[in-house]
């Protein structure tokens, strides 16, 4: 089985679908409220010069996530 991809692994310009959110508790709630729900399409817009955080386009709004949070969000590339 291939290693599951997370949002942190996706190159700029790519578009993916959220498969699963591994984050627990209040942070999970926070991500869901921002529109990061399973099935939602996410586009990777840009990375800051240091590589962290990264800006994502989610349901019409640009949301910045730190890589450690993005790494907890598994995605499908199709």
């Amino acid at each position, binding site marked *: 089985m291939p290693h599951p991809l997370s949002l942190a692994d996706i190159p700029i310009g790519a578009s993916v679908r959220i498969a699963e959110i591994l984050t627990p508790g209040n942070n999970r*709630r*926070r991500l869901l409220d*921002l*529109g990061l729900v399973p099935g939602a399409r996410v586009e990777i817009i840009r990375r800051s010069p240091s590589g962290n955080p990264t800006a994502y386009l989610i*349901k*019409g*709004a640009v949301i910045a996530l730190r890589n450690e949070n993005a790494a907890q969000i598994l995605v499908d590339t199709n």
Partner: protein
Amino acid sequence: MAIDTTLLSESTKNNPDKQNNFVIALAGNPNVGKSTVFNRLTGLKQHTGNWPGKTVIKAEGTFSHRNRHYTLVDLPGTYSLHASSSDEEVARDFICFSRPDITLVVCDATCLERNLNLVLQILEITDRVLVCVNLLDEAERKGIHVDIAMLARQLGIPAVGTAARSGRGLESLKNVLDDMLAGKIAIRPRQLVYDPELERSINKIEKRLAPYLPAWINSRWVALRVLERDFSILKHISHHKNNDFPRQVLKEEVALCLP
């Protein structure tokens, strides 16, 4: 009309004409043109409200329409009401404890879906909600058509389309506020039903809590917060009930109901 005025500024509290004065809370996601709606409705008749520790509420303004006087309270823009930030807490507490006569939720027509999360969360607290689908002009430029009537039917509450920058739709917005207060509009808000296991827990907690809650508070909503282990809500309620509320006992009792 008996409103809890603890979160309202002095000028609002001291308004002598209470019978005809209505408080409208203005809620919405960030960047949906909420301030434009606020400015359009209130004109220049606004001032910055100031509450101890509650400075995040930006402004309070007034307007009149069809012989009713309105105080419009601009709440911070938030994506949710889970009180994980002070902005969200201020918005939540105002909607819940200050009991505005109507909560006006401004939505962005160009990305309606992400806005409906907040609408549904507010509907879990109160059914006196009016949805304002703003930025219709931008949506049209992008080729997006929003079926406002269908949205209102699906949510079970009134909805009005606006393009606040040009003033479009604001007259009907004010008319609908008036119609709601006059009881001319039937409101049957859509209630979210969770999966059976959650519903069982919600019911259990709600039954335990209900006898102690003030009649105006939505006990299902409080049960949902407790189910998320947000016990701070019990603290808030006991504060608003002047501590006539066995918070600690209730917290322990309710904890037994948690899965």
